[in-house]
C-alpha cells in the first residue's frame, strides 16, 4: 500500500523554464515532508523540507508547496538547469517512520 505517490515517472523541461514535480499522500498523520534528489549509482541527497504547519518553504531555486486539504505537495525548480537532471523522491514522516514515493525522473534539456 503506497502511502506516498508520485504519479509522473518522468518529466522533461527546457533549460530556464520551471519544473514542477508533484506528490500525493494518503496518511493525514504525516507531519513532515521532504524532497530528495538522486543521481545514478549514488544515494539520495536531501533537497528541501516542509513542516505540516506550513504551506510553503523556499530555498534558492527550490520551493515546496503543501496543500494539506488536498494531501498534495509539489516541488518547483526555477529556473531549471541541466544539472538538475536526476530522479526526485518525495518522502513523508509519521513518527519515526519514513515513507518514500516512487520517484520522478527529471530531464532538463539544454
Amino acid at each position, binding site marked *: 500500500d*503506497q502511502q*506516498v505517490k*508520485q504519479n509522473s*515517472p518522468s518529466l522533461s523541461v527546457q533549460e530556464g523554464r520551471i519544473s514542477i514535480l508533484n506528490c500525493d499522500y494518503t496518511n493525514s498523520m504525516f507531519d*513532515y515532508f*521532504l524532497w*530528495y534528489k538522486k543521481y545514478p*549509482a*549514488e*544515494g*539520495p*541527497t*536531501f533537497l528541501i*523540507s516542509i*513542516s505540516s504547519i506550513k504551506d510553503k518553504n523556499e530555498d534558492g531555486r527550490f520551493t515546496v508547496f503543501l496543500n494539506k486539504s488536498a494531501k498534495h505537495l509539489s516541488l518547483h525548480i526555477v529556473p531549471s538547469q541541466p544539472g538538475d537532471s536526476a530522479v526526485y*523522491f518525495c*518522502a513523508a*514522516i509519521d513518527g*519515526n*517512520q*519514513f*515513507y*518514500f*514515493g*516512487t*520517484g520522478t525522473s527529471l530531464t532538463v534539456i539544454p
Partner: protein
Amino acid sequence: NAGVTQTPKFRILKIGQSMTLQCAQDMNHNYMYWYRQDPGMGLKLIYYSVGAGITDKGEVPNGYNVSRSTTEDFPLRLELAAPSQTSVYFCASSYTSGTYYEQYFGPGTRLTVT
C-alpha cells in the same frame, strides 16, 4: 568527514547464504536507517535506530536483523538470503531533534541473490 559509508558496494549471494551489510557514519548522528530500493520503486524502510542499543522495525523488516552497539555503526544482517531480497540497500543517518529530519545517505550496496 566521510559521511555515511557502506560496504560492500556489490555482492552476489546464493539462496540460503547469509551476509552482513556494513554501515558507518562519522557525524555523531543519533538516528540511523536501512532502506531497500527495488527497480522502479521508492525506498522502503527496513529498520531504524534512534540511538545505540535501540532499534525498531520499519515497513519491510522480514528476513533482516540489525544491531546498534555504537553510535557510529549500524550493520544489517541477512539470514537465509532469498531472491526477493535482490535490491539496492541504502543506509542513512540523521540528527533528529525537534523537527530537523534531514537524512544523509550512503552510496548503496547492490545485492543480487541467485
